[in-house]
């Protein structure tokens, strides 16, 4: 049965990438949106552009993974094709893991493009590559799980977009991308600590600066915990919806 699950997971991800993710509008949105947002901020607040790179990568992976992920499941449920996957010999966690894998693969691909551009402009410097890879992987998993949870928590596609933005936009401003956490009022710092983007930005900054801070392991652990919790909630919600 494990072989059935792994096979199902792989082919569900491949099908999603082909049918939904690697479409021109999605690719251009995934790459252009973070650039546009960060450049708009940089024009308003000219300064050290390099400092914005961790935030740029974090935003790219957040929107790259969760934008489509948040609507894929609810869309398939509405048109009835999710039932094909539920009828297949693939258990529910494997089915959702396949969905996550699709979102992660797309998010990591567009982030790789943005990273290459950033490296070409600013140079590699002292990047800690293993830490960068781990940070991107865990951030992709956490944001993809967030997208999956949003997608199974709602009934309509438009509700998924609304809910996803309700979560993502506050994260953008509280996650330490544009304003360091240390400059925020204490209450907002507490809120920021409850957001996965905060930990993604901190680990990406540490990886790009080439220094693992004492808190980096905690940041990575927090991303892994967010992934596990959101995935578990998504499996539970989908099981309830399809019972």
């Amino acid at each position: 049965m494990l072989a059935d699950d792994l096979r199902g997971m792989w082919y569900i991800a491949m099908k999603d990438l082909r049918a939904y993710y690697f479409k021109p509008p999605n690719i251009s949105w995934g790459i252009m949106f973070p650039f546009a947002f960060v450049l708009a901020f940089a024009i308003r607040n000219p300064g050290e552009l390099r400092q914005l790179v961790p935030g740029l990568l974090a935003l790219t992976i957040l929107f790259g993974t969760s934008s489509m992920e948040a609507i894929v499941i609810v869309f398939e449920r509405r048109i009835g094709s999710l039932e094909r996957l539920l009828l297949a010999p693939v258990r529910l966690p494997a089915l959702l893991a396949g969905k996550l894998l699709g979102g992660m693969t797309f998010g990591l691909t567009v982030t790789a493009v943005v990273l290459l551009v950033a490296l070409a402009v600013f140079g590699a410097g002292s990047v800690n590559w293993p830490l960068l890879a781990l940070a991107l992987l865990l951030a992709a998993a956490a944001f993809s799980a967030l997208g999956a949870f949003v997608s199974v928590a709602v009934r309509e596609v438009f509700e998924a977009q609304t809910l996803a933005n309700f979560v993502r936009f506050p994260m953008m401003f509280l996650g330490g991308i544009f304003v360091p956490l240390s400059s925020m009022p204490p209450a907002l710092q507490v809120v920021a600590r409850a957001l996965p983007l905060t930990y993604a930005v901190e680990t990406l900054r540490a990886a790009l600066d080439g220094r693992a801070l004492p808190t980096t392991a905690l940041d990575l652990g927090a991303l892994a915990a967010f992934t596990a919790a959101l995935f578990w909630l998504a499996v539970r919600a989908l099981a309830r919806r399809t019972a």
Partner: protein
Amino acid sequence: MMSDVIQVAELTKHYPAGRGAAPVRAVDGIEFAVREGEVFGFLGPNGAGKTTTIRMLTGLTRPTAGRARVLGFDLATDVTRIKKRIGVAPETSNLYDELSACDNLVFAMQLYGVPRRERKTRAEELLARFRLGEKRDTSFAKLSRGMKRALTVAAALAHRPPLLFLDEPTTGLDVMSARSLRGMIADLRDEGVTVFLTTHYLEEAERLCDRIAIIVNGRIVALDTVDGLKARVQKRAVVEAVLADDSGGVETVRFESDDISVAVQAVLAQAAADSRRVLSVNTLQPTLEDVFVHLTGLGAEAMLAEKGGKGGAHAGG
């Protein structure tokens, strides 16, 4: 000897109702068995419990109570093994709009573990069989309704399941597409595939099914062969004859008897006594519609009216 591929005992599904209301009994303690190699019809009006029964037997929804074994596996403990061995074509044609006809079939095979080397050949074979060869590269979204239905059934067969569930396969199809699909279902039976078929088209059930269960309000009210069901309604033999006299006058006469040979002899005796010729003799059988009306108290037209919005493939074919 034929074995049972589905065994159902006291299968029940209740859905929670609104606050203060009693739960909805969608399926209420049904019992039946499906034999290997037969086309088993599950007949009933809309909302009778047909689709809920299929959803339970295919692992899409959990029964509230009762037991079922499918292909020898217990539904409660071995649902993944069951899923691997069955094919299901749901009421909605639900393949992926973004994928081509061929890619949809290949994806179905990938999910069920059909070896890579067999996938293309099997896909081409199914496309040819369902007369979709020319549409192999056309996206599912661009196929006609009949083609979508045929491809959905083809996808259910992709991994060569010995048991196929077809939920209202011809609903909404035009006459020719429905007729073509019925021919394919008959071919599957000839190949030894067991088919569990739900339909609200009485004529379709009569034509295709070896045995039929009639379900009303979540309960099975009858289960038998088509002839067996008819025999429950028809207690007396009815013979209808057309007689002609020398002047060209034609009359239709009808005789009823407990014994069909007595009725036929009565026709011949009447013709001889009146010096008339017998143009035709027919034994009148009740239709499945008569059976349905007798057993359920519902009119067949009421059943069709409930599905009226979905088209009308019941005629012809």
